[in-house]
């Protein structure tokens, strides 16, 4: 992506001690710590007091600021910050040293943000409270609307890739407000975006155009500058994940003797040689259905990928066969096929046929599926099914349909929250719904026309996942 020269708005902030912002018990506020060595307190506290504090608002992502400061003695520190006078957010703690830098993430545009720099210790040393205002959003982003209130992920965020009138990766907070964005050039197929598990960068799965998947990449994006590095991942399509050790795993479209099918390839984080983990063309159960698609078209059409570190197993959704495959990562062998043509399970009475599904979530003894359904049916739904891997049975537990009916003709995502609530992402409709454990609609997010959502990643923190 072409990016204009990066300009930083250097905000040398004035000292602004707030009379009613007394630090918590056990902390000490230096009399002055900002950009004035002469006024720094002397003695032990002065050695660890934050000095030369500079706040730089990114001109590329104008909701993100970088705070840097120095200490005379090697120490660690962090910044607590927030909007409307609250300091409810906090950065990670810096590594021990005398020069420190952190990003302030998670605040909406055009918002007054207050902050304090805190040196870790006993007692803590806290800077004077300071403030800055975040910038405006690019006009190319959609107008969004929300109704109700989030109940299941208060204080969290969602990574939302947007596709349509313009292409962007965004992060919204629990009020549906954009807190991070990256406008993309059209031409790539934006399939999936992830905040890296360590919270240091964004990762995008950018498949090539359908007629040239060879140019697919994993894009690594700096959260502050927006600068990116593309790592070639030829023929990657639809979905990729980041394993707990940082390894990337992606769905890759392949061809043998005119037959098109999918594989799962792993790549070391940041790039390197790929390793094949699974190959649909070597799955004897799937090969029985090779002739269900015309020669030259993908007979599996894998479109969603998940990984279970406990079982060291992959799960992949094969849209054209209506099935989810469990794959033993160590051997690359298929363990079972759920639903669809190659079903390994007995469907108990009342269990519907799943067709053209997209994202899913494996749960203990259950699976949650976004079932797009055929166009002739004309509506999509969320299904929750019980799996008995001993008896090899599958049974419908719960389903949810939009009111009025909504058909999602591309993508679709679903998640069960820890409190029993459920998120349904009606991707091509640009809508996200949250239901509580009772199945009642409690929150809805919509985009203006022209903006579809692809797959969603929900994160508790923008500073890395536990």
């Amino acid at each position, binding site marked *: 992506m072409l990016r204009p020269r990066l300009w930083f708005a250097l905000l040398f902030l004035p000292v602004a001690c707030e009379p009613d912002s007394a630090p918590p018990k056990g902390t000490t506020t230096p009399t002055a710590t900002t950009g004035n060595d002469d006024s720094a307190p002397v003695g032990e506290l002065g050695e660890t007091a934050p000095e030369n504090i500079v706040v730089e608002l990114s001109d590329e992502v104008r909701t993100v600021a970088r705070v840097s400061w120095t200490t005379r003695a090697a120490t660690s520190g962090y910044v607590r910050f927030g909007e409307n006078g609250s300091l409810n957010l906090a950065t990670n703690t810096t590594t021990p040293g005398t020069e420190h830098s952190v990003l302030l993430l998670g605040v909406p545009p055009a918002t007054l943000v207050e902050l304090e720099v805190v040196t870790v210790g006993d007692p803590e040393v806290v800077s004077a409270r300071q403030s800055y205002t975040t910038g405006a959003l690019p006009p190319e982003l959609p107008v969004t609307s929300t109704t109700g209130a989030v109940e299941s992920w208060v204080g969290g965020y969602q990574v939302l890739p947007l596709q349509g009138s313009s292409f962007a990766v965004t992060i919204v907070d629990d009020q549906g407000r954009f807190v991070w964005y990256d406008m993309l050039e059209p031409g790539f197929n934006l399939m999936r975006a992830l905040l890296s598990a360590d919270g240091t960068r964004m990762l995008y799965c950018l498949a090539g155009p359908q007629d040239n998947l060879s140019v697919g990449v994993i894009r690594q994006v700096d959260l502050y500058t927006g600068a990116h590095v593309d790592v070639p991942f030829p023929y990657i399509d639809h979905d990729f994940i980041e394993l707990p050790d940082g390894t990337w795993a992606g769905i890759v479209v392949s061809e043998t003797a005119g037959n098109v099918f999918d594989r799962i390839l792993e790549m070391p984080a940041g790039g390197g040689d790929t390793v094949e983990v699974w190959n649909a063309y070597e799955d004897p159960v799937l090969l029985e259905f090779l002739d269900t698609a015309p020669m030259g078209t993908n007979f599996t059409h894998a479109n969603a990928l998940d990984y279970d570190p406990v079982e060291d197993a992959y799960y992949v959704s094969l849209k054209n066969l209506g099935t989810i495959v469990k794959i033993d990562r160590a051997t690359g062998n298929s363990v079972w096929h759920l639903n669809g043509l190659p079903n390994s399970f007995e469907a108990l009475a009342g269990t519907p046929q799943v067709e053209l599904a997209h994202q899913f979530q494996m749960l203990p003894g259950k699976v949650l599926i976004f079932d797009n359904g055929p166009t002739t049916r004309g509506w999509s739904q969320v299904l929750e099914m019980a799996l008995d891997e001993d008896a090899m049975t599958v049974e419908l537990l719960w389903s949810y349909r939009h009111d009025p*009916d*909504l058909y999602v*003709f591309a993508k679709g995502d679903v998640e069960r929250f820890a409190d029993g609530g459920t998120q349904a992402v009606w991707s091509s409709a640009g809508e996200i719904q949250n239901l509580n454990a009772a199945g009642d609609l409690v929150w809805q997010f919509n985009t203006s026309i022209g903006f579809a959502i692809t797959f969603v990643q929900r994160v508790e923190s923008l500073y890395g996942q536990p």
Partner: protein
Amino acid sequence: MANPDSLAVSRPARRAHRASLWRGVVLGLTVACREPVPAPGVETTLPKPDPSGLILLTNLHNFSYVGDLDVPFYPTVPGVDIRFDWSTATDDLQCHALSPVDDIDNLAVLALPNLDEAGVEYGLSNDSLQQADMGGYVSYAPGDETEAWLSSFTFFGTDTDIETLHQLDTGSWLLLVTSGDTLGVGARLLALFTPTAEASATEVELGSGCGILSFEADLEALTPAAALVDGPWLVDWTGLTLDGRTHPIEATRINQLMVARYPGRTIREIEEGFLDLELDAEELWTTQLTGGTTADLASLGNSAGPFPGFAAEGPWLLALRCTLCSNPAPRFLTVLVPS
């Protein structure tokens, strides 16, 4: 989602309501209509510019308008391929000349399952359509052709067999014929084609676009804003909350500031040719905005160079626009009085 209240109102009733609104505007004009130049010897009430160059824009400075869309409606045979033909269309929605070959870059079909004809028109007029209103979207780049078949349309290159989905009880189907390929932007022609049991038509022939859009603007009742002739000119619309329809303004969507001058024309004449606002300007300067609620007019420019100031003859207009919105009307438009 379109305003549900509006959907409950029949089209004649809505039109009567609009007519009533417009009568009110016209009545207001009869007493407010005057040129922004005082007669000799009469104490002036013209605004004076802030010596600092600050030009504060508020709702009082904004124009008002009412607009109406009357999209041609074609009942079509369900479940068959539909042919679109725009070869005879020589003018567009704004009654501007149109070349069916050179000016048309993209055709888009939107399936809107839960909206009727009036709901679609309301949503387009008010920029209130949501993605969730849309049950399907396909497009087609015609190149030098002036006809297209529904079966040729794809979803970003993926064939969805859209022609088989054009069935009874699938709501309204909207055809957008556009310059450029940004969804919902640059519409030159519009048509609604709805699968209907009694229909016999399998073709949608788009003729003149003139008459689809009617637009009545009032620039005379607004409070003009003042600007220094030679600058500086820091425009600040932080306090602006309403657009010309008195709807809440979406400040984040404003992406262009335009200044234009119209020597030899009265404000009323500009108003009457409102759809030609850009064509009628003697000179016009723009600057792209990347967000925020302030701009420096020194950043304006056109092909001849940077904005030279307000020394030339007016009247002068300043507009804040959303070029990415389906409704092309400026979000804000005012008369600038230099001194």
